[in-house]
Structures are given as C-alpha cells and as structure tokens.
C-alpha cells in the first residue's frame, strides 16, 4: 500500500498544493502537474543537466529529487528568469551571442548561469567552463555559451 502525499510548495513565487505519489520525480511534477514545461527532461539520471532547477536558491537536478521532497521548499524554474529585468538579461545575452541552437539543453544552462553570476567566486573563463561542464549541449560546441556568460560576468562586475 503506497500512501499519497499532500505537498505545498512555492514555485516561481506561486503557491501550489498537490496530492502526489512519492515516486513522482520533481522533473515530472514540474512539467506534468504544474504545466511548467520550460524544464526539460533529458537523461533522467543526473548526467545531462537539462532539468536543472533551483531549490531554496541552490541548483539541483530535478530528475534526482522526488516531488514529495519539494514540500515546504521554494523552487525556481527557467520560467522565473522572465520575472525581473536583471534575470531577463541572461536570456537577452544568450540570444545576442547565439548561445543556443536547438534549445533543448538551454533551460538547464540558463538556471545554472543564473546561479553562477550570483556568486562572485566565478570570474575566469576556466572557472566558468568547469562550472558548466555538468550541462551537456550537442549543438553549439559551447563557445557561444561561454562568450555569453563572460559578457554577463563583465556586466555583473561593473555593478
């Protein structure tokens, strides 16, 4: 007998209450139960990075968390980047540098980059390449993504 759980979670500043089974992955919950389909599901075992979200301000693979674990937590998905001008700049800069082609991996990159530019620790190209090595992109060859992030870091450092 598997119990269902009632969870309350805040996703992109909106409160949701849902009844779910424990085995539901956070990635499927976000896409299928909340209809936030910006988060993409790729490998489902933590390798590709497409499903990256933020839980309580820290990035996490949503395919390696269960929806039930989101109870009482604050979640941000790629849709949250539309919410304020500073975060929208990430989207604009990716567009400017053509840092995407098919776009499948892009939501994961955007959320990861959002965390990187919040953190003063990330400065050099080498550090950025290492930090983004957990996100796989099969189209761009990464160069334009790195250029976009370096530009974002330059803008951040000026502030």
């Amino acid at each position: 007998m598997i119990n269902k759980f009632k969870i309350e979670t805040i996703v992109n500043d909106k409160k949701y209450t849902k009844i779910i089974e424990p085995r539901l992955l956070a990635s499927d919950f976000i896409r299928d139960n909340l209809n936030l389909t910006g988060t993409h599901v790729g490998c489902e075992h933590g390798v590709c990075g497409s499903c990256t979200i933020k839980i309580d301000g820290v990035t996490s693979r949503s395919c390696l968390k269960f929806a039930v674990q989101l109870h009482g937590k604050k979640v941000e998905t790629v849709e949250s980047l539309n919410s304020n001008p500073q975060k929208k700049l990430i989207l604009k800069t990716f567009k400017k540098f053509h840092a995407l082609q098919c776009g499948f991996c892009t939501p994961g990159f955007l959320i990861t980059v959002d965390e990187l530019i919040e953190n003063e620790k990330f400065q050099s190209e080498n550090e950025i390449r290492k930090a983004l090595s957990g996100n796989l992109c099969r189209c761009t060859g990464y160069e334009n993504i790195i250029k976009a992030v370096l530009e974002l870091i330059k803008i951040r450092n000026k502030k």
Partner: protein
Amino acid sequence: MKPSPFNYLNVTTIENALDALSSNDNARLIAGGQSLVPMMNFRLAQPDLIIDISNINELKNVTEEKDYVEIGSLLTHTNAINSICLKKYFPVISNALKNVAHHTIRNQGTVGGSIANADPASEWPLLINLLDCSIKVKSKKNTREIPATKFFESHFVTNLKENEIIISIKIPKIQNLYGWSFHEESPREGDFAIVETGVIIEIENNNIIKNANIIIGGVDEKVIKLNNIENFIIGMNINEDLCKFDEKIVLTNIHPISDNHSSEEYKKHLSIVLLKKAINSAKKQILSKLND
C-alpha cells in the same frame, strides 16, 4: 527511467530516522540522493521505504575541537569546499572535492552519502583514509566510531550495519609541518576517476620524514593505503629523492581491471605516474614552507 513505487517518510531528528530504519526491512536513507536516485531510476535499487534525512539540521555542522574537526554527515560537497575551518586545517579537502562530479551535483551530494556509497574511485573515501578520519555511526542502542581503515570493505560495501546511520566524521588535526597533494585523472571534467592519489607527508624539526599517508583509488575493490611506500619514505630526509622505490611494490598492492575507458596496463602505468607526481608535489610544498 522511473523509480518503482515506494513509501516515503520525512524525518527531522536522528531518533526518528533510527526508529524507522530499525522497524522496516527494505528501507533506504536518502540524503542528497545523487547516487541513490539514479540507481532507483534505473530500478537497480527498489527500496520499499525511503527515509528522507536531508532535513536533519543537526547533521550539517562543522565543529572545531582542540585536536580534531568534526563534520556532520549531511554536509554537502559545496559547503565542505566553502568551509573556512576545513580550508584552514585541511586544504586538501577542497582541492579534492572540486573533482566530485559537477557544480550542481556538489550542491546536493553529501559526505555521508558518498562514504556510505563507498565507490572505490570517488574522492571522499580517499580523503577519509588520507586524513586518518574516524566515522561516528549510531544505531538505536549503540554509538561507535569506526576507523577509516576498517570502514571500507569492498566495492560499495562498508562496515556500516543495516540499522546504523552515519552521524559525523572526525578529522584529526595534523601536528607536524606537512605537505599534501591530490591528483586525479578522469576521461572528462567531473567524470569518475580512472586513478586518484592523495599524499600527506609530515616532517620533524631535523627535516626527517616522521609520518606519511599515501593513498590510491580507482584501482582496486576499495581505496588502497600503500603501507610499503609509506615505510620506504619514513625516516628519509625530505631533500632526498623520495621516488626511488621499486615500482613492483606498488603493482603488487593494486588490482585494476580493464574497462571501456582504459586497460589494466594503462591504469597500472597511470598509478605509478600519479603516485610519483603526488609524492613530489607534497615534497615541494614542504620545501617551500621550510624556505618561508
């Protein structure tokens, strides 16, 4: 690619976790879930009950005592890398942990999870041996401390009993002047190590090597402490050539197996190369400390 059905229990105290663990047969603890959930998604692991310990806040601390530093088992790799206390006493930890998977995985994965998983090619098991740590575990009736050398038994097998939870890791402070190094070779950034080596060399006032810890991972069923090499360099002067040891004494102590990435021969060759590199960089660090 979806886990099989299971029940879920969120606990906020160690006592509640121990109660649940002892009264359910096929239960698994989840901390960061970065190894367990992939296994569940592949259905290689099919627990009946998941006990979520990730919200037990008392297991997330770094505490400094006079002779040792104690870290809670739920400390994430990212928080261990950023800990000022760990950086001060054991800079090798942040250096090695930067090789644990990727940034986002390090945000969630924990030290306790990593050592309970006991992958012989991962970084924490090597560090636990390198730093002579002891592992504090608790069951409903008993608390015990397991020394590093006894904790890891084989591939994914530890001394931990089914009803026990890892509470913390005690890392003794190093009293003498010492040098450290960590080297790892992997196919790509963030991949599992093909070979990893860690070295700590301690010297006395007269520049004689008093103690040495030389550890190698990825080349056997568990992380290997190379006692023969340690004994070879203990008693030598730090200025001597420390890498004149017979390579055979390394090769008889490790048993790598060929896989898709690298052959047995390559792993043996790499073991020798990385060991010498690691010993020499620890030595170099001591020499530069002596010149300061």
